[in-house]
């Protein structure tokens, strides 16, 4: 665990601080504090993009940089469309996301290997990032007894996870010569997709909804961290942890 002390590092530290602050502030102020993350996280992405000269999605550090921006956008949609302030719940997720981004993941810069130079690179990774944020929100909203909002987030999350999985498979067919290779990350992504498919079959009882959304989030966490980083699961996606 290290403190990043360059310009990008201080912006990421500020994201952690503002997310934590949002958790404790009262209602009218906390939404505005949380919304300051919108320009802040956009700036971190632009800074990184400029520094590495490619869309910052090459590894966990770069992919996680998109999550606070997406989270704040979703808070904004809830606030403007539904007049529903979800900033505290989203800030809780924001702390969980921004903490490893600021203090755990390595910010070492690198070039894109040949396999990542594809028009499907950005839609595949961005699709997964949007899906992960929506599905994590869905779980939190369900835990805090907001079933309608949870269901809507889960439905859009499922659409994006299906799209990203399909795009990944099509990309695999272009790059590796096969659309499915039983690579560990592919299998865990399929297992995650099946969990959410099960959710849509068993969503009439709250007990099932909470369990399946929770298991889904657990699978997402395992897929993006353990499967990416562990030497046990070396495979076609091994560069993702670099």
């Amino acid at each position, binding site marked *: 665990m290290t403190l990043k002390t360059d310009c990008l590092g201080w912006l990421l530290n500020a994201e952690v601080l503002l997310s934590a602050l949002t958790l404790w502030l009262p209602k009218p102020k906390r939404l505005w504090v949380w919304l300051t993350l919108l320009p802040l996280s956009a700036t971190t992405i632009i800074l990184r993009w400029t520094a590495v000269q490619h869309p910052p999605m090459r590894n966990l550090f770069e992919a996680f940089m998109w999550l606070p921006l997406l989270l704040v956008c979703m808070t904004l949609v809830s606030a403007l469309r539904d007049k529903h302030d979800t900033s505290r719940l989203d800030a809780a997720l924001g702390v969980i996301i921004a903490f490893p981004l600021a203090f755990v993941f390595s910010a070492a810069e690198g070039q894109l290997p040949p396999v990542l130079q594809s028009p499907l690179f950005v839609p595949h990774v961005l699709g997964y990032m949007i899906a992960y944020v929506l599905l994590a929100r869905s779980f939190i909203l369900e835990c805090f007894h907001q079933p309608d909002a949870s269901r809507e987030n889960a439905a859009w999350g499922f*659409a994006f996870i299906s799209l990203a999985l399909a795009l990944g498979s099509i990309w695999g067919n272009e790059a590796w010569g096969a659309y499915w290779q039983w690579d560990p990350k592919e299998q865990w992504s399929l297992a995650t997709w099946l969990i959410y498919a099960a959710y849509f079959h068993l969503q009439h009882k709250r007990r099932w909804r909470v369990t399946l959304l929770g298991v889904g989030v657990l699978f997402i966490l395992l897929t993006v961290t353990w499967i990416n980083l562990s030497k046990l699961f070396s495979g076609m996606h091994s560069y993702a942890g670099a």
Partner: protein
Amino acid sequence: MRYLTPWRSRLCFRTCATLLLLGLSALAILFAFPGTHTFLKTPLTNGILLLLLGVLLFTTGRALINRRWLSALFHCGAGLVIIGGGITAGYAKDGQVLLTDSTYAPPEYRQFLLEGERIALHSFDILTYDNGMPKQYVSRLVFPDGVHEISVNAPLRRKGWTFYQMSYQTQEGPYGEPIFSTVLTLRKDPGVGFTFCGYGTLVLAAILLAIRETCRLRPSAKESIA
């Protein structure tokens, strides 16, 4: 007329479907350990996939009869993916060729025959970034109708076969100079079309589900705010 009681109905459809899906998830994870790429090769897994295909076709039919179009679209898409996967597992052909970009190499390392057509290596280049890291691998092959280029993420499709740039090897030449060989994968897969149609159907169904949920939940969302 025979009616299903509510608990039997739940047991038959929702619970069975969920248990089946969760069981397959567990199976997928079981096979997640490295070195096991035999998922479609054993009678057990073939049986499971055939059973799943049967369940999906039955569910699609039932959904069509009950006019549940979205459910039919989902299960039809999943069925297409499994049919495509089965065709790939049973009928896809593939192989690797290693071609050397050196005049010292014997002719069999510089060309090969594919369905009566002679294909030779014209050149193989490794493009690098300023720091020396590989940026792209490019092989140029000579076909009877001219030279065609293959690189990572840009395969060449020709007469049903697809040529992929997979990797490369280096060896030392007779005067100590490096000799590069390109490794190409050749593949003919009749299942791709079915699988990609299945993906398209599944993604369309998932987007329609999300739109339906948004439209359905909007009035109640507005009431709760009021």
